[in-house]
């Protein structure tokens, strides 16, 4: 039960972060969506045995999160939740790919372990980028950016409806579920039969609510379009942001930054 309430709180917290005011927050949402896309494509386009070249990419999430003043611990926890799923698939790689690729003294590292490590680093980077995108932009602005970038309006409008009502309906669902749990002794009564009617009731209430909402919106002059008070434009600042990061990502994709840095340092030391 705590998990449902916890999940709602978590969702609210991530969305609240977007109300912050920083250099990054003030950028047009399109710039942030595009930069995130370039970042993710650069990261996942590496070959499966690439490991070290991924590390310089941490620069982007860390710098963005810091500039936007996002709470680091919260972001790390959010990313940490997803790692087990990456591990489930990644950990099978060492079983199937046993060819030794690197020997560090007596330690033989197989291709499977390298690609498994690579999958985990990829997950951290891509999930981090998505969480940070919402944290610095907010869901409404992401939707508006998607619409300006060409997504059909029918889709974005119902996406906004969905987002608005997640909070209302999950709270309602959590109450219903808590009530059922309190009335069932142990495991009894938590089965499929009660679930069907519980969800069915929730569904009927939802349906009637949607009709009422639509009537109310029509009465207030809704024409199938949401208006926003925020005006933002894609200006030079946004162009610089997208271009600057993209050039860096492409450069790091083409040249192994970690290798270069390592050579520089080991060269200086020896």
């Amino acid at each position: 039960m705590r998990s449902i309430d916890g999940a709602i709180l978590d969702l609210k917290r991530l969305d609240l972060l977007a109300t912050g005011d920083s250099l990054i927050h003030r950028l047009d949402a399109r710039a942030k969506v595009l930069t995130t896309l370039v970042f993710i494509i650069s990261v996942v386009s590496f070959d499966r045995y690439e490991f070290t070249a991924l590390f310089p990419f941490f620069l982007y999430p860390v710098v963005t999160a810091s500039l936007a003043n996002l709470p680091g611990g919260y972001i790390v926890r959010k990313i940490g939740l997803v790692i087990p799923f990456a591990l489930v698939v990644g950990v099978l790689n060492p079983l199937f790919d046993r060819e030794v690729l690197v020997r560090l003294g007596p330690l033989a590292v197989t291709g499977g372990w390298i690609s498994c490590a690579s999958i985990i680093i990829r997950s951290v980077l891509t999930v981090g980028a998505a969480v940070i995108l919402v944290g610095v932009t907010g869901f409404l602005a992401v939707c508006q950016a998607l619409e300006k970038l060409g997504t059909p309006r029918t889709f974005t409008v119902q996406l906004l409806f969905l987002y608005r009502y997640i909070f209302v309906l999950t709270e309602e669902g959590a109450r219903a579920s808590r009530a059922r749990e309190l009335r069932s002794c142990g495991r009894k009564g938590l089965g499929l039969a009660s679930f069907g009617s519980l969800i069915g009731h929730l569904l009927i209430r939802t349906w009637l609510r949607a009709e009422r909402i639509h009537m109310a919106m029509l009465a207030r002059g809704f024409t199938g379009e949401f208006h926003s008070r925020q005006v933002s434009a894609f200006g030079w600042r946004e162009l610089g942001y997208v271009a600057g990061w993209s050039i860096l990502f492409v450069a790091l994709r083409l040249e192994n930054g970690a290798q270069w840095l390592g050579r520089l340092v080991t060269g200086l030391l020896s």
Partner: protein
Amino acid sequence: MHMADALLSPAVGGTMWGVAAGTIAYSSMKVKKELDERKIPLMGVLGAFIFAAQMINFTIPATGSSGHLGGGLLLAILLGPHAAFLTIASVLVVQSLFFADGGILALGCNIFNLGFFPAFIAYPFIYRGIAGGEPGKARLTAAALIAAVAGLQLGAFSVVLETVASGISSLPFSAFVMLMQPIHLAIGIVEGLVTASVVSFVAAARPEIISAAAPGSLAGVPLRNTILAFLVAALLTGGVFSWFASEKPDGLEWAIAGVTGSEEVTGTEDALHTMLASLQEKIALLPGYAFRETGGADDKWAELGHPAMAPEDSGRIGTSMAGAIGAAISLMLAFGIGFALKRQLVGEK
């Protein structure tokens, strides 16, 4: 069953983004044209309902574990294929942004796997086919069960294909199929039973919702057309994949042969050739992962590893050590810069 960004190559992810975007555009057009505007808020609110429903668990008989509703088939029954597809897609958008289920690049795959199959295959051809107009309880349960199982099997198979085509995971095709299909058989049976129980409850309590909501707007479209469209999509996808996956230097060599009249180029042109070839190798989105014959481990490391990682014969440990040291330093640098920026921001306030 969500695909993750980390297992996906840009070619596969990008192709599936294209497929998903096309289907969204088509469905949006259909919804706008065929249905009244009232459906749009309804779709959004039902999407939110799916979230709420997914958070409520039930115990699965005889196993002691608990499950939850997926909702794809339920939405298709309530809204019809096009509106249901859009609603599932928007649920997945929110999941990828807020819960990091899947990921942004994997969104296209997930929308296709979890949205297309229940909405455009399982519902119109299997569920409607078996349930007909006004099904009794047994008939409805059978229809939901078979449709849910079929939808999930197709979706799971599609996950396997996308993962194997991406070539990031080393899981062989057969092992992955043997892993995914039975698990999703079990999930599909549970999903079918749950869907049937919710639909029959609503049908008993508020029959007008079910009868008004299921226009089955694919009904007019014969099966043949859909299969044809599916084939075209498959060919297109295959074509794009193989274009990305084809051996890289072909295009370049062909171009050079055209310019110089022979494939052998000498002198300064040779330097240019190597430079272009290495550049092309670096920007190839899908390195020829599985199609290349590999020699010993050395060759494999040189071929599959990034060119910058490919060692000279000597000093391989040297280069990989440099890589490891560099990785550690870049990580420290990144976090150092972040920390400094944050300190500065706090200082300003």
